[in-house]
């Protein structure tokens, strides 16, 4: 979902740049409480892993593909503020070195994928956790649902921006239907990857999954061997 240069007019790009700057600024302050000697390297790894994951486009039919956005995944693993910074770093590297996502659209891309994708994904994850049984095995399921919703949420935010400051004159309804429709399908891929990765980390190091705190036993990492019927 990397927006290239030119899709949005200058005022919109400046506005999303400002939103991104404020969001990243707040995240830089709040992330300190989420990070310590043990979680900081994990957060660096999460960013690197999501960069890699974003390179794997999977086909979703009709000649279209999708790839992991990673906002929900990062938020569940290392916390929402650090997670937003992870995605922002990935987008920065992509824009600066890979020509993926326009430089003038970096603010837009951070707003859509790091902020909207990340926080919607994390919010849904938290809500779903409230409903599910208080067990470690609920965490990957909740993460997957958060991931599923995060992708069409980012697509909806894109359409909103497009209606406000898109340079092309295309009916908003048409863009909305196509964007949300395709990104629900891509969201299913996002949900599968997110659920699998969270569950893999939970199996080997449950203490490194921030979203599982209070659920993952802090003295017996072996708990993951249990599969409650």
């Amino acid at each position, binding site marked *: 979902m990397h927006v*290239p240069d030119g899709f949005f007019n200058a005022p919109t790009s400046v506005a999303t740049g400002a939103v991104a700057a404020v969001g990243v600024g707040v995240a830089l302050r709040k992330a300190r*409480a989420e990070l310590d000697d043990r979680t900081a390297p994990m957060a660096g*790894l*999460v960013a690197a892993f999501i960069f890699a994951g974003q390179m794997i*486009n999977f*086909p979703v039919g009709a000649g279209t593909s999708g790839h992991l956005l990673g906002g929900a995944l990062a938020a569940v693993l290392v916390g929402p503020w*650090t997670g937003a910074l992870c995605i922002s770093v990935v987008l920065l590297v992509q824009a600066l*070195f*890979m020509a993926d996502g326009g430089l003038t659209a970096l603010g837009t891309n951070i707003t859509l994928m790091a902020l909207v994708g990340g926080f919607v994904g994390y919010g849904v994850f938290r809500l779903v956790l409230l409903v599910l049984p208080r067990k470690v095995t609920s965490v990957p399921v909740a993460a997957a649902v958060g991931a599923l919703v995060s992708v069409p949420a980012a697509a909806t935010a894109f359409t909103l921006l497009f209606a406000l400051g898109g340079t092309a004159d295309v009916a908003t309804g048409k863009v909305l239907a196509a*964007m949300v429709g395709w990104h629900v399908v891509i969201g299913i891929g996002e949900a599968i990857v997110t659920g699998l990765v969270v569950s893999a980390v939970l199996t080997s190091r449950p203490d490194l999954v921030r979203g599982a705190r209070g659920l993952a036993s802090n003295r017996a990492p072996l708990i993951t061997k249990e599969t409650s019927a």
Partner: protein
Amino acid sequence: MSATGTTTSRRFLVIGLLVALLVAGVGSFYASSHPDGLEYVAGRTGFLDTAEEDPVSTGSPFADYGTEGVDNERLSGGIAGVVGVLLTLLIGGGLFHVLGRRGGSEEYVDSPEPPVAARD
């Protein structure tokens, strides 16, 4: 937390990084080359041509996940992927290291499980 926490963490990080490098360096060659959701919708609904023909270039030799001067497609994409993972790790890791050092100490007080970092 067990006393082996520190070493296990290191092992976990190394394995995680190897997986990321494999995915970006090797797996990416097998990724779908179809346009992604946004590009497809832009083409279908008719605003793809508003994308800048000549976007602002940073002069990076890894533009579009290829490596300038490397003709072999598999190698070209693989190198770009590995470089991207390492750059992300470097920038992200550096940033989080700095943030963690400045903010971590207050958290230790009410943390239910004191971190084993002291074993360093």
